């Protein structure tokens, strides 16, 4: 909408009746967020660009009424819960919407208590926002929006940052709102499987237009993503893995990263974030770290290149102890892509952005030029001019440039933290294929994610982490190795590595 002239929405006509639960899906950049912002007047009032046509929400035209006028009617939960917090502690945050209505104290207290009960977040009251996890912040964000009892609830990708159990309780909350309060619910989401039984209406958008609008098929045409990669037996070996490289075939016996009894406690924290992790990552396989929000996945990844140093225990990169290297030195071996990696972009052009890492590693200009070319085609960035400033790109493109910046360092180990965040199914599958390519070229790939579908489709080995411990570890039964791997359903070795692992 800014800079380049883009038509984000094309002739969208839509009527949603009260009490209906509508799910709007579509690929990244299809105009979902733009449509969401039309629903409470943020477009046209708080966004640059021009709007044609009218949006009438709760009987008010968004042209005639400013954003705050809609606040009592439309509750909007934005995608990133961290960016919608306007106060510093949980109770103030939830009370904010009521306080700015200048309601009497008693009434605010009641609304506050009601919202806390509804979201089951009594244990969070009194805590400050910055110590909450993503999932907890989201619950607070929802509570603070629901405290004013809006009749319409709009949510932008609420499922993208939360784990399966969080998603499940969000679904039951939405069901309760729909049944009890008759709230009109509009959810913009990629991961539609969660909403399968709740939605009265599915809308699919593409390139700014509504391409399909239908009642859901009770048989369920959308894939059910709730199917956790839990029990090995439940997942039939599928032909789509047959062409992938299996663990051990290209790998050697030396693990590229190994953890030995690693314990880590954040300063000031009561419980350790990692307690006794022993683990080895080997070349030629994709290891998936999964587990609830706050279980220690990110903490574990940050130990792989020394961003965090263990309180006790040791980490080896190939055979070298990590404790003797600086992060920048370890970056030559482990390429770690952080969560929300688009933050790290700063160079003037995509080419420079990709070249930043290799430059830090001391590659010369000619090598860097070759790497940039290679990585651009590897990450399917060829269609974008390399002299484009990365900050002007769309979310999905930025994510790919950030990934390219990591892959350009050509490290033997690639570790990614929640790489599918905010990606649509199309982009996810191209990311997955890219990871498989890397893996078959002999790299060690580590992915922390709670996107079960993605994990199940592309992972070789699964490690579940809960409260800083490894609670479950198993391999995907692959066609050629199914017999030997499938027999023990899964090896549960708390805090240890499974014996039949190499």
């Amino acid at each position: 909408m800014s800079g380049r002239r883009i038509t984000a929405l094309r002739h969208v006509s839509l009527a949603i009746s009260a009490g209906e639960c509508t799910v709007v899906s579509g690929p990244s950049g299809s105009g979902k967020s733009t449509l969401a912002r039309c629903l409470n007047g943020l477009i046209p009032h708080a966004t640059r660009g021009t709007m044609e046509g009218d949006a009438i929400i709760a009987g008010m035209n968004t042209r005639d009424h400013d954003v705050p006028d809609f606040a009592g009617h439309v509750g909007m939960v934005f995608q990133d819960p961290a960016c919608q917090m306007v106060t510093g502690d949980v109770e103030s945050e939830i009370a904010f919407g009521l306080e700015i209505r200048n309601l009497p104290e008693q009434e605010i207290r009641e609304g506050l208590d009601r919202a806390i009960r509804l979201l089951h977040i009594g244990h969070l009251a009194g805590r400050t926002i910055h110590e909450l996890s993503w999932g907890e912040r989201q619950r607070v964000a929802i509570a603070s929006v629901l405290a004013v009892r809006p009749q319409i609830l709009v949510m932008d990708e609420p499922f993208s940052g939360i784990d399966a159990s969080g998603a499940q309780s969000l679904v039951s909350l939405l069901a309760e709102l729909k049944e009890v309060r008759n709230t009109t619910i509009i959810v913009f989401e990629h991961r539609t499987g969660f909403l399968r039984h709740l939605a009265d209406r599915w809308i699919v958008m593409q390139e700014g237009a509504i391409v399909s609008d239908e009642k859901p098929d009770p048989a369920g045409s959308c894939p059910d993503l709730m199917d956790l990669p839990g029990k090995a037996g439940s997942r039939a070996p599928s032909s789509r893995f047959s062409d992938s490289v299996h663990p051990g075939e290209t790998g050697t016996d030396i693990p590229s990263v190994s953890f030995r009894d690693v314990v880590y406690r954040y300063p000031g924290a009561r419980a350790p974030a990692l307690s006794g992790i022993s683990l080895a990552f080997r070349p030629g396989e994709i290891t998936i770290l999964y587990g609830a929000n706050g279980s220690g996945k990110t903490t574990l990844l940050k130990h792989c290149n020394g961003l965090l140093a263990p309180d006790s225990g040791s980490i080896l990169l190939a055979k070298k102890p990590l404790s003797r290297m600086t992060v920048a030195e370890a970056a030559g071996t482990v390429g770690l892509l952080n969560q929300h990696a688009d933050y790290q972009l700063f160079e003037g052009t995509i080419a420079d952005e990709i070249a930043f890492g290799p430059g830090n590693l001391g590659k010369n200009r000619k090598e860097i030029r070759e790497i940039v070319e290679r990585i651009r085609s590897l990450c399917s960035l060829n269609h974008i001019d390399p002299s484009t400033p990365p900050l002007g790109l769309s979310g999905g493109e930025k994510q790919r440039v950030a990934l390219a910046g990591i892959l350009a360092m050509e490290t033997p180990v690639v570790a990614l933290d929640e790489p599918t965040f905010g990606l649509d199914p199309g982009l996810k599958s191209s990311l997955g294929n890219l990871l498989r390519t890397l893996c078959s070229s002999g790299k060690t790939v580590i992915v922390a994610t709670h996107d079960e579908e993605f994990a199940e489709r592309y992972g070789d080995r699964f490690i579940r982490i809960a409260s800083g411990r490894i609670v479950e570890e198993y391999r995907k039964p692959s066609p050629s190795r199914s017999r030997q791997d499938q027999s023990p359903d899964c090896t549960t070795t708390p805090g240890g590595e499974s014996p039949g692992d190499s």
Partner: protein
Amino acid sequence: MLLRYQPGESFLHRLDPRTKLLALIAMSAVALLFSSLPVLLLAFLFETVLAIVSGLGKRFFRALTLIFPLLILVIVLDSIFNKVSSGQVWFSANIGFLHPEITTEGILFAIAMGLRLLTLVGISFLFIMTTAPDDFVRSLRNMRVPSVLTFSLGYALHSTTALAEDTRQIMDAQRSRGLELDRGNIIKNRNKLTALFLPVTVSVLKRSKNTADAMQARGFRQGVPHSSYRSQVPGNRDILMGAVLFSFIVLLVLLDWLLI
């Protein structure tokens, strides 16, 4: 972060923020008005006791180490270039227009100045550590300070944590890309600074835009008064604190008068 609100249930934590604001002003006045060593020492000891009573003893001293370099500088400069110089002369020189001189009285005076700094900083640290920013803002609102002002102050106070969080994320990301921040001089390398400064700026701008949208979406309007979900009524605790503070200051005044 050493210097930030530490949630707790102690005596100081539970005081009305306005009482604490009063204590902050009173103790700062003490630090600035008195210059005799015993008085300032007592004032600082009083703060130490308050910190220990609130279960913040260790954190209080650790936070004070933040101003250590400044403290040393103040003491050294004040003992060499002092206004009060009497008693035993240990060292004296004339270098151009400078007249450095070390005397017993001068050293005592310098220590008093160090204590003045500690008292001043100490009470502010205690205030920050025991007062939730939102409570403070709410109490200002109760004092009829315009809501735009109080809100901006509150937002500024807690967005420092968000900013620190973002900055750390960005540093982590760039170190993961091989940017050497653990060795060498950051300032010397323009690229190192850009690699941190630019993403931080972008994230600050993005964050403020998002917050503005979120506030509007929740009905924030400029210039409209806000109510509060938790009105603060000064209680016995506040009266006690007021009494203690008053008697302590009277004691200091008497002591100061006796010393002269």
